[in-house]
Structures are given as structure tokens and as C-alpha cells.
């Protein structure tokens, strides 16, 4: 499932800034990074590599939404 989880986030926002496709956002209440638009993850690992505390887990699989006939 592309970017999977964020454990032990310190809210530094490095991943949010580094994601080219705007997948991660800061939760305004917890002040932690949150995976909001997982479907747009391109599995490039920049968020993980920029994370100072090694908090992000990414898997190579991507679930692609089913094709429907109008949208």
C-alpha cells in the first residue's frame, strides 16, 4: 500500500515539505504528519529519506482504484 504508516513522528514537517505529490499533511490537532492522500504516493521514498527519526514505512505495493465507467 505505498506509504503505509508514520510511527514516532516529531512533527518537524520534513516529510510534508519533501513529498513531491502532496501525500502527507500536518494534523492540526496532534501536530503530527498524517498520510492524507495515499492514492497519490509515487513510492519515491523522499519522505522517508528526509525524515530525521526514521518514522516512515513504505511498501512497494500500490493499490490502484478500480476502474469505473464514469467519473
Amino acid at each position, binding site marked *: 500500500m505505498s506509504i*503505509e*504508516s508514520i*510511527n*514516532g*513522528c*516529531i*512533527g*518537524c514537517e*520534513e516529510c510534508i515539505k519533501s513529498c513531491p505529490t502532496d501525500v502527507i499533511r500536518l494534523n492540526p490537532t496532534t*501536530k*503530527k504528519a498524517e498520510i492524507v492522500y495515499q492514492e497519490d504516493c509515487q513510492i519515491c521514498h523522499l519522505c522517508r*529519506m*528526509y525524515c*530525521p*527519526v*526514521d*518514522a516512515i*514505512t513504505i511498501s512497494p505495493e500500490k493499490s490502484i482504484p478500480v476502474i469505473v465507467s464514469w467519473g
Partner: protein
Amino acid sequence: MGLIMKKQRNIFRLLILALFFIIVPIVLYNLGDFPKRSFLMDVLSIITILGFSLFLSQFFSTRINQKLVKDIRMVNVLKIHKFIGYLFISILLLHPFFIVVPKFFDNGVSPTDAFLTLITSFNSLGVILGIIAYTSMLILLITAFFRFKIYLKYKTWRYLHGYLTTLFIITATWHVINLGRHGTNPFSIYYILAVVSVIYFLLKTYLFKTSKK
């Protein structure tokens, strides 16, 4: 015969402590569905978790634990207390550095930069709590180590020690629950249970009974 019984009882008591403060966290760690990391990082995680849980166990190797004191004499309780204290404070003092260990093994963010980001992320409550807990722990360590050089009355020192510990335990637990990589519900409940029982015993000892010196 009585002596053996007593010894068994002591072992039993220590076993219960070990079960609660060593076995339970390890079991929780293994039950939690945490992302797999490198062996080194998993080991460092376990060491840190045990560092914290055994630090909590410190309360049961003090005067609060009157049964233990009665059985193995205060001198020995103190020995255990000191050993666990110095060892695990050292681990907890190091744990912010453990977190950036992976940065030594890749070409990306340097360990120094990662560490600076880590300790300056003030928009996170967890980080601020962590810094408070860290500072109180550092003071605890120094005042304990130089107890006889700072010329405080024993009682004053003991209150200082107790208050610092209370400050530490509250901020640290909050920090762990807020920020911990392994902050699942079972772990949170476990820490809260531990802290609640600690505070219960503390209050029992200090407020409701005047402990004899």
C-alpha cells in the same frame, strides 16, 4: 527452613517485578504490529523501552516497597536501586541519539542535522515534554551522584529526589505516549497503569503514613 522460605519469597517478589517491568513490555512489543526495522534498530528500541519500564520499577526498589525493605534490608534495596538507576538513566540519556543511528548508515540527512531537527521541533508537545523529562532526569542523575557533595540535609535531598522523579515520571510518560514509535493502546495502558500504581504507592507512603527514617 524459615530462611529458605524467606529467600523463596524474595525471589518470588523480584520475579513479579521482573514480570511486570521486563516480560510485559517485551510481550507487548512482540504483539504490536510494528513495522519491521533493522536488527540493530529493533534492539535499540527494546533497550529503550526496557530502560523506561525498568526506570518505572525504581519506585518499587525504594522505601515504598516496605516488604522488600523488611526482607532484604535497606542497604541491599539501595544497591538494586542505584544499579538500576544509573544503568537505565544512561540508556534514557542516550535514547535521543539512538533515534538518529540509521543516519550513520545512509548518504542522506547527516546525523547531526537529524538530531538538530529532532530537538528543535518545538511545535510538537511530545518533544517539549521530552526535553523537560530529559532535563529533570539529568538533574536527578547529578544530584544522586554528588549527593554527599551538595551538602543538603538528607530529608531535603530526598524530597528533591522525589519531586524531580515525579516531574520526570509525568512528563516522560506523557512524552512516551505522545511520541513513542511503539505508542499503541496496550503500551499506553500499560504505562498509565504503572504510573498510577507508582503514584498510589508514593501518596500512600508520603501522605498517609509518616515514614520512619
